[in-house]
């Protein structure tokens, strides 16, 4: 029995020792179970994030255990809490410092849409300044909702192709509002 050129005969011949797959799938599988979080926490949703990260709900079950407090070592930016216009350039800077591939998780109503703050100070959803991969509304969201969102993000990451990266810098730069 020689080794054939078609995939089926290779699998038959080496079924005890070799698994055939695609590189993208292996990489996606590796990435989705090893998120390194950067928790960008500004407000009350942070309390719920502690619950998510703590032992009762335990985000470690999804492989996303380790918050890195340097954006250069993180690949999942979790934006937790209201983002004000004063804060927005800082958030963009953190995003730009993260290494590719990177994903953005919008955690809570304020981050998704501005929430109840329709006023002079609040960014009306961080998707106006950053590309966002997953939206989890709620004020704050229950940990179950966060895990639902995380699992949906894992599905997305599993199906990504290498061509998606690098994504590049955030689309906006800080503008000069200096008076003439």
């Amino acid at each position: 029995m020689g080794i054939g050129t078609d995939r089926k005969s290779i699998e038959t011949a080496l079924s005890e020792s070799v698994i055939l797959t695609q590189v993208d799938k292996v990489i996606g599988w590796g990435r989705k179970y090893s998120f390194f979080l950067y928790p960008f926490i500004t407000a009350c949703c942070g309390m719920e994030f502690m619950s998510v990260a703590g032992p009762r709900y335990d985000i470690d079950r999804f492989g996303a255990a380790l918050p890195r407090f340097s954006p250069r070592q993180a690949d999942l930016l979790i934006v937790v809490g209201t983002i004000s216009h004063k804060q927005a350039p800082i958030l963009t800077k953190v995003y730009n410092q993260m290494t590719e591939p990177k994903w953005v998780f919008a955690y809570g109503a304020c981050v998704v849409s501005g929430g109840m703050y329709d006023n002079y100070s609040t960014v009306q959803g961080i998707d106006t300044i950053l590309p966002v991969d997953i939206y989890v509304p709620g004020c704050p969201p229950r940990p179950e909702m966060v895990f639902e969102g995380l699992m949906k993000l894992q599905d997305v990451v599993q199906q990504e192709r290498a061509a998606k990266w690098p994504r590049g810098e955030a689309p906006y730069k800080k503008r000069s509002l200096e008076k003439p």
Partner: protein
Amino acid sequence: MGKLIDMVRQKFPEAVLSSHEDFGDETVTVQKERIVEIMKWLRDNEETAFNMLMDFTAVDYLGKEPRFEVVYHLYSVTLNHRFRVKAGVEEKDPTINSVVPLWRAADWLEREVWDLYGIVFMGHPNLKRILLYEEFEGHPLRKDYPINKRQPLIGPDN
């Protein structure tokens, strides 16, 4: 009439414009030109001894005259009593003398009122925005600031 109101009225009969003690909170409204003098007396007099400025804020009564009112909440740690002092500030001359020389706590509180209401505190050592960014134009807690107006530092206009 409340004891503190009596004392202030006796000491500054022409400076006190009105007073009330609704809900047990003794309150006087005074002429803004005399504010530092009255505050200094309230702090240093042994029977009042208001050694703490608990809070300081402002109100915008758009359409009334004077348009703004600044509100001082005083507390005496030694005598455990409280007092509220108000002063009207006109729109065309939105200035009042600073009380930072009397209470250091007034520093950030007056900066906040400048930031959000645009009332200028004469003699303040460092009167600049405290909550908003330097590039912000206008004072958002004024009632005529448009509720939908945004001034983002980054991103699209709205």
